[in-house]
């Protein structure tokens, strides 16, 4: 299950998608919109996406994770559009016979999704202003995406 959706994410169905009789360790990560970050209130997040490319990237990442960690299942759903506080923007599920592989693969997938999948979010503040979220370094300088060698080709 690899999906970009405009609807709320049903986390249970993402977990169910990786269920397998030979899996012992099923892991589900759900990224939700935080209302408060360092004292600043987020009214909502607005996600947009280059959808066909995002789907290809996700397909590639899931394929790579599955073969690297010998997973019994992998599923990713990313929501786009408005995501209010407490609601899920991302659900990632993996399953494998043992828990170390599930934890490693889950962390790797989420890291890579955040690095390479063409999805962008705006934070909407209490004045209704939107602010594009860019990864920044400690000098508050926008940093590039990722080293070229890390690129995913599908």
């Amino acid at each position, binding site marked *: 299950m690899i999906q970009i959706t405009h609807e709320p994410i049903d986390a249970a169905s993402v977990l169910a998608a990786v269920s397998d009789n030979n899996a012992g360790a099923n892991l589900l990560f759900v990224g939700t919109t935080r209302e408060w970050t360092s004292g600043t209130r987020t009214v909502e997040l607005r996600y947009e996406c*280059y959808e066909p490319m995002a789907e290809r990237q996700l397909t590639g990442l899931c394929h790579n994770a599955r073969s690297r960690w010998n997973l019994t299942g992998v599923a990713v759903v990313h929501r786009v559009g408005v995501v209010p506080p407490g609601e899920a923007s991302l659900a990632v599920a993996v399953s494998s016979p043992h828990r170390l592989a599930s934890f490693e693969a889950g962390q790797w997938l989420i890291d890579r999704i*955040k690095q390479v999948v063409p999805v962008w979010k705006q934070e909407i503040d209490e004045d209704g202003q939107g602010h594009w979220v860019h990864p920044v370094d400690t000098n508050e300088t926008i940093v*590039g995406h990722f080293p070229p060698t890390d690129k995913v080709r599908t």
Partner: protein
Amino acid sequence: MTVTVLMFAHARDLAGGTDLKLDLADNATICDVREALVNACPELRILMPHCLFSVDQQYAEDDDRVTAQSEIGCIPPVSGG
């Protein structure tokens, strides 16, 4: 040739449009696309070094060639998840 660049997120807001048409030499590369974009929309200058480009929905290198048929995407720093 004329190429079309799909603009997203912050880059689209700065450019003021979802797709920009650029006139380029027939043997143009992603490098030339960057330069032409900044010439067409000077507002993109600061963000441009942090943008990647895609050709036909795959990340491209700066010296990759583009054609009039290429689906070119200008990808500002991503922030999904």
